[in-house]
C-alpha cells in the first residue's frame, strides 16, 4: 500500500495548496498497529499523516455532515468503495450537495475484522504487521503469525461487489472494476436454509449479548438522525428495559430504517464490542430490495431511494 499512500498524500497536499478543498477527511495511524483513526486535515503540512491500509475500517462518510459549514468551501473525503457509496446515498437523500464534496477514490482490498485477528493471535497484542501477497503477517512480542488475508477480512468485505466508489472526482492510482454480479456468500446462503426456529434461536442468542451501547448506530453513516427513535421520550416508542424483546425490536427497527440505504460497509458490525452479527439482517434486506424493487443503494445520486419511492406495479403477492 506504500505507493498508494504516497500518491494519496501528494494528491491531498496539492488539493489543499490549490485550495480546491478546505479540508480532507481521511485516516491516520491509530493508537495501535492494527488501528487507524479518522483525521481531518486542513493544513497541507499535515498531509503526511494520512495512511491507507487494511486497518482503515471506519466509514468516513458519517463525518461529512458534521464537518462542513456553509461558505467553507469543498470538503474532500478519502473514499473506499463503501464510503463512496455512502456519499452517493447522502447526495440522493439530499443530505449533502454534490458540488460541496470532493470524492478522493481509493482502491480497497478489504479491511480487517479485529475480532478475527484477535482470535488468531489468542488475544496477544500486535505491534507490527505487514502484507505479503495474500498473507497478513502479524507480529508482536515473542510471536509472529502468518494468516490468509481472507480469514481476517470483515464479512462485508468478503462479499463486497463495489471495491471502488461509483462516483469520484480524483482517484488514487486505478479504480478497481465492480464485480459483474453479486459475489457468492456461503455464510448467508447456508443460514437461509436453516429452519425458522433455528434462525430465531440464532438471532435471540446474538441479540441477547447486546448491551445497547448503540455503537453500531453511531458508526453507521446512514444513522444520521438528529434524534434516534431509541432516544425519543415523548412519545416513547422504544422500551428501555433489559428485556430481550426490547433489544430485538431495536435491531429490527434499525435495519428497517437503513433499508434500501445501507451500503453494506460493515462499520456497524466492526464497531460492536460484542461482535454481534448485524450483517446478516442488513444483507437480507438489501437483497430483498434489489430483487423486489430493482434498487441498489449508493450507485446513482439521481435515483430516488427505494423506500421513498413506489411503483404502481410493485408485487403484492403477500396482501390478502
Amino acid at each position, binding site marked *: 500500500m506504500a505507493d498508494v499512500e504516497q500518491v494519496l498524500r501528494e494528491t491531498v497536499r496539492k488539493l489543499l495548496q490549490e485550495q480546491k478543498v478546505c479540508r480532507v477527511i481521511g485516516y491516520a495511524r491509530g493508537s495501535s498497529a492494527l488501528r487507524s483513526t479518522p483525521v481531518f486535515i486542513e493544513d497541507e503540512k499535515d498531509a503526511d499523516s494520512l495512511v491507507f491500509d487494511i486497518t482503515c475500517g471506519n466509514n468516513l462518510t458519517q463525518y461529512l455532515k458534521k464537518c462542513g459549514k456553509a461558505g467553507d468551501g469543498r470538503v474532500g473525503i478519502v473514499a473506499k468503495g463503501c464510503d463512496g457509496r455512502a456519499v452517493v446515498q447522502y447526495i440522493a437523500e439530499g443530505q449533502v450537495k454534490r458540488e460541496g464534496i470532493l470524492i478522493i477514490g481509493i482502491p480497497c482490498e478489504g479491511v480487517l475484522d479485529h475480532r478475527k485477528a484477535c482470535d488468531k493471535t489468542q488475544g496477544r497484542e500486535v505491534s507490527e504487521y505487514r502484507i505479503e501477497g495474500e498473507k497478513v503477517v502479524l507480529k508482536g512480542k515473542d510471536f509472529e503469525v502468518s494468516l490468509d488475508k481472507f480469514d481476517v477480512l470483515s464479512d462485508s468485505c468478503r462479499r463486497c461487489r463495489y471495491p471502488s466508489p461509483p462516483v469520484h472526482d480524483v482517484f488514487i492510482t486505478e479504480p478497481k472494476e465492480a464485480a459483474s454480479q453479486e459475489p457468492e456468500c456461503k455464510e448467508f446462503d447456508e443460514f437461509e436454509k436453516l429452519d425458522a*426456529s433455528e434462525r430465531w434461536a440464532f438471532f435471540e442468542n446474538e441479540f441477547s449479548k447486546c448491551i445497547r451501547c448503540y455503537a453500531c448506530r453511531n458508526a453507521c453513516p446512514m444513522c444520521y438522525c438528529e434524534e434516534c*427513535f431509541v432516544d425519543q421520550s415523548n412519545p416513547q416508542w422504544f*422500551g428501555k428495559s433489559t428485556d*430481550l424483546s426490547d433489544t430485538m425490536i431495536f435491531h429490527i427497527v434499525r435495519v*428497517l430504517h437503513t*433499508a434500501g440505504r445501507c451500503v453494506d460497509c460493515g462499520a456497524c458490525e466492526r464497531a460492536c464490542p460484542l461482535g454481534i452479527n448485524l450483517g446478516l439482517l442488513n444483507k437480507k434486506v438489501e437483497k430483498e430490495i434489489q430483487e423486489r424493487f430493482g434498487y441498489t443503494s449508493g450507485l446513482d445520486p439521481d435515483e430516488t431511494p427505494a423506500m421513498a419511492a413506489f411503483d404502481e406495479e*410493485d408485487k403484492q403477492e*403477500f396482501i*390478502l
Partner: protein
Amino acid sequence: MIEAKVENTIGRHKDWQPKILAFLCNWCSYAGADLAGVSRIQYPPNIRVVRIPCSGRVNPIFILKCLQNGFDGVLVSGCHPGDCHYISGNYVARRKFAVLKTLLEFMGLEPGRVQFSWVSAGEGEKFAQVVTKVTEDVKKLGPARKLVRNLEPTETKY
C-alpha cells in the same frame, strides 16, 4: 422440560382465543368493517380495531409493539391500489410491509402472525373473510411466543 409444559398448558388451553389487533384505514377498510356490521355479516370477535388515517400511517414499530405487548397477531388493512384517499399512501405502505414481512420471516417469525389486506368500503363480505382467515391462521399458530415481553412484575418487598 419446563418450557414444553408451559407450551402445553397455555398453548393448547381449550379456552384460549387469539387476540388480534387490526389497523384499519379510515377511508376504506374501516368503512368496510362498518358495512360488514350493518349488513349483519358474522365474523370472529377476535379483532380489536384501531382506526388510522391511512395504511401508510402504520409505522412498523406499531406492529412490533403489538406483538411485544400481548397480541397474537396483527392485521393491517387499507384501500386497494389506486383508491388511496391520499393518492399514494398505500403504495408506500406496500413497500414498507413487504420489507417488514420478509425481514421478520427471515428472522424466524411465523408468517401468519402479521398480515396485510386491501378492503374497500364496499367489501363488507371481504372484510369478514379476511378476519376469518387471519383468526384461523393465528389460532393454528397458537399464542405468540416470539418478541413477547417477558418481564414478570417484580414483587414489592416491604
